Structure formats: C-alpha cells, structure tokens
C-alpha cells in the first residue's frame, strides 16, 4: 500500500520563478490498484512520480510504502521496491551494454563479484521470449541496437524482474509509434496482471485512461482534483471526463496532445 499524506513541493522557492508543483497532496493506493492519471501540462503528474520515486525530497508531508516511511529515503534505495518507466525509451537502459548485461543489473542477484551464469541466462531467455520480439536470440547485442519499442519492452521487464511493490509508468508509450505503443501496452497489461502489481500510469490518452485499470485520477495545479473508480468510472465517457474537469477546475483542459487525441477519436466515431 502506498500512502501520501499532505505532500508539498515548491521549486525555486523565494524567487520569481517559484512554482508550487505539489500542493498538500494526499493519496492512498491500495494493493493491486491499477490507477491511471491524467491532467493538463504542468499539472504535477510527473512531479508526483518524482516525489514517490525519490528524484527529489519533498518539502513537507509523508510518504509511506508498505508500512515503511520512505519520505527521506534516497532514490536508489526506493528503487528496490519501486519500478519506473519514463516516456523516453533511452532512459531506462544502458545503450552501450548488452541486453543480458542490462538484465543482470536489474535482477541484482548474486554477489558483487559474480559473473552471469548459465542458469541466469536461461532465466533471461525465458522472460525475453515472453515479449515475442525475438530478443531472446539477441541477448549479447548492445541495447543501443534495439528500436524504441523494444527498448521500452526490455525496460518494462527490468523494472518488474523483481516484482516491485509499486510500478510507476510515466507516459511510457507516448514516444513510440502506434504499433509499438499498442504492443508495449499489451505487455504492460500482461505483466501487471500476472504479478498482480500495484501500478500508477500517467497517460495522455483518455481512452486508455478509462479502459485500463480500476481507478482514474485527474490532476491540476499540483493536486488531485478528481478521483473516480467503480461504477462511477465504468459509466464514464471521455466527454464526461472533459466536462468534469471543466466544472471542477473552472477551465478547459489544455493538454494539446490529449485534446488532439480526443478529436481524433471523436472523428472516428
């Protein structure tokens, strides 16, 4: 279970550029929740992830993950329990190292001076074959030779190779071409279901925001302004979502990509 209570963060405090990116935000995520998060540009979605993952230490408030207070824990220690994917597929892997070397580091098994052994290689082969991308036969190739979609898929494997308490997906399919994005999303679904992972996913695609998972959050001005789940969410359409946003925040949703997506999907119907 993840519990954020009254978390705040201001960037550049005391200057003209001061920006309160998180405003007294509280959130409780139950085990097994798959939550999708939407919001305008600059609403604080990624900042929320940065706060949870420990990219910065929050100014105030408390973050608890599975009964451990991680508020002040450094990023690399939190990474033991938190897996994370970014929009940029290059960010999650070391391009100059081979696929199996990347996986070895993510698996983190064995002593510091241990080499990759046959058993481990077999294990990697097995999980890579699940991607259905033929990567199990390319384990000795450098990561840099893979396409964005392939790299993101491997990153997903790396983040979940030791099932984390929490998986953070920050628009992890946004930089991929549509086919690759679908594929990665499908793999994401499978992995999350298989390991019954607790997962937060930022998306600009309102369709998948409502389709995927069991709960949807909408953020604005560094706080959560809408939190729907259950029947309420099942009955919701994209237009409902837009209207609700307008009603609560008093302005139209100004995420360009999100609106484009909406118009495109709307045109199709």
């Amino acid at each position: 279970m993840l519990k954020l209570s009254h978390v705040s963060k201001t960037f550049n405090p005391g200057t003209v550029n001061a920006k309160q990116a998180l405003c007294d935000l509280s959130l409780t995520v139950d085990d097994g929740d798959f939550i999708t998060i939407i919001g305008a540009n600059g609403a604080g979605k990624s900042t929320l992830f940065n706060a949870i993952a420990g990219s910065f230490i929050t100014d105030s408030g408390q973050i608890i993950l599975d009964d451990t207070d991680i508020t002040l824990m450094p990023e690399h220690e939190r990474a033991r329990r938190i897996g994370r994917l970014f929009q940029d597929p290059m960010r999650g892997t070391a391009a100059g190292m081979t696929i199996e070397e990347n996986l070895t580091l993510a698996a983190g098994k064995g002593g510091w001076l241990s080499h990759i052994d046959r058993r481990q290689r077999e294990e990697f082969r097995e999980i890579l074959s699940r991607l259905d991308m033929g990567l199990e036969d390319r384990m000795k190739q450098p990561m840099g030779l893979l396409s964005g979609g392939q790299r993101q898929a491997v990153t997903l494997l790396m983040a979940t190779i030791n099932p984390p308490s929490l998986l953070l997906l920050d628009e992890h399919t946004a930089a991929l071409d549509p086919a690759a994005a679908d594929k990665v999303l499908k793999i994401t679904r499978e992995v999350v279901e298989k390991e019954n992972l607790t997962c937060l996913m930022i998306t600009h695609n309102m369709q998948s925001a409502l389709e995927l998972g069991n709960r949807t959050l909408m953020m604005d001005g560094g706080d959560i302004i809408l939190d729907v789940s259950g029947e309420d969410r099942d009955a919701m359409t994209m237009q409902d979502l837009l209207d609700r946003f307008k009603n609560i925040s008093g302005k139209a949703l100004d995420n360009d990509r999100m609106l484009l997506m909406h118009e495109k999907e709307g045109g199709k119907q």
Partner: protein
Amino acid sequence: MNLADMGPLLQTALELGLFSALTVLALYLSYSMLNVCDLSTDGCFTMGACVGAVVAISGHPFLSIIAAMAVGVLSGFIVAILQTKMGVESLLAGIIVNTGWYSLNIAIMGNASLLNMNKTETVFTKLKDILAGTFISDAYRLIIALIAVTLVVIFLSLFLRTRLGLAIRATGNNPDMVKSSSINPAFTTIVGLCISNSFTALGGCLLAQSQKSVNIDIGSGMVTIALASLLIGEAVMSKGGITLRAVGAVVGAFIFRLVYTIALRFHMPAYMLKLVSSIIVIVAISGPYFRKRLPLIKRSLNLKKQGIDGEGSADA
C-alpha cells in the same frame, strides 16, 4: 635509419609504451567506462612514484609496489569522495587534488623534489641479477612491464564482467538506470576511481624504479599522454568486447611511444612530447565533432556560393 637501429628503438618504445599503458588502462576504466575525466592522474602518478621510491629506498622492493598501489587507491578515494559526496565538480576535484598532491609528494620525498635510486634494490635490479648472463639479460624492464600490464588487462577483463563491473560500466552509460537498479552511482564511482588510480600509481612506481630516479615532474602531462594513447587505441579497436578494447588501450600506448621514438630519431626535440600528445587528443576528440557538423558546414558554404548569406544557418 637502418634495420639494426630498429631493434633497440622498438624495445625502447615497447618498454615506455608498456609503462604508460598502466596509466592508459587506468583511464580506460575511469574515462571510457565510468565516463569521468580524472585529472588527478598526474598527481597520483607522481605520488605512486614517490611512495614507491621511498619504500624501496628503505629496503622493501616488493612492498614498495603494494604501497604505491595502496596510495593510489587512497588518492582515487579522495577524488571520488570530493565529486560524489562533497559537491565538487568532477574536473575541479581532479585539479584540486593534483595541486595538493604536489606539496604532499615533496613531503613524501623528505623535502626534496628529486630522489635517486642508483643503489636501491628494486624488482628491476632483482630480475636483472637473475637474468644476468642469459641472452635476455637486457629485457628485464620489458619483462616486468609486460607482467604488470598483462595482469592488469586480465584483471580488468574479468572484473568488468562481474556485477560490480557491470554497474561501473552502466554508471558511465546511464546513471539513471543504475539508480533504478537499486545501486548507488556514488558507490560505483568511488570503487571505479579507487581501482583506476591504483593502476596509475603502479605505473608511476614502476617507471620511476626502472629509470632509477624520481622527480616531482615525473607525472606532469601524464593524463594527456595517456588520453592520447587511449584514443589512438580506441581508433584501432573501436569495435570489440571489453578485453579487446583493453588490449587496444595497450596497443595505443605502444603506437604513441613508437611514433614519438621515431620522431625523436628524426631530430624532433624531446620537449615536444607534450605538445604532440595535446594535438593528438584535440584531433581525436574534435575530429568526430567536426565530422558531425560537416553537412551543415557544406550547406552553408553552398549557400554562400549562391550569394545568399549562410551565416545564420551555420550557427543554428
């Protein structure tokens, strides 16, 4: 130059190349793997030479090598702590340590800037005694340098495949990914710099003992010379595994010394060594940069030819 001259010439280049190869391998670890430009190399090299000399003079030829490497580890540790835990910029950390070590090195040599080891027993004199009278009696320096370099190459090719070695390589490649693998990049940087500087100090120690003297300037410019050798080596063996690239670094060191030794034969003054190494580093680093910009430069020249001012587009 006739063929009879070539033998000793090659041997000198090989010896000097192998001694500097230790520092080149140190940079292979810190510069190529960890992506840290460790400017403390000069000071660390000299410190290895000084400590090695002082311990050898006090009558411990084998201990002198271990002591030199230990002091290298310490030097690397301090540089690494400065840049990972104390907020000092990586390049600045190296420069600061370098400056500080200058005073320390003179102190280590007992308020002297020069130490003589003419009558000192070292691993070199020991091996020379053993080989005396055999047909390879001249090769004692070469043999010791070769052993040291081989051991370091073997160590690196094994170590860089361990989980710790992988973590060090990943730190230079993508520190974010290291963090998300629950490894602290500060830790891998510290370990990497400790190891690399132990090789640098070993290089200093062996060079000083082989030429039977150490002076305070023995390491000056070492980082540029080693970097030049490393970049030559990478040009020779750009594609290849960890081991092959380490061997490439050694080959680079040899090529650098060979070219230099031949240039000396053609009456290039000895003091040009450092200028040559600087130019090699500049060419090796700027070359790829300009190659990348070449299409842009061509386009802007074409525009100029057509009488349109291409200045703006070249800067964009």
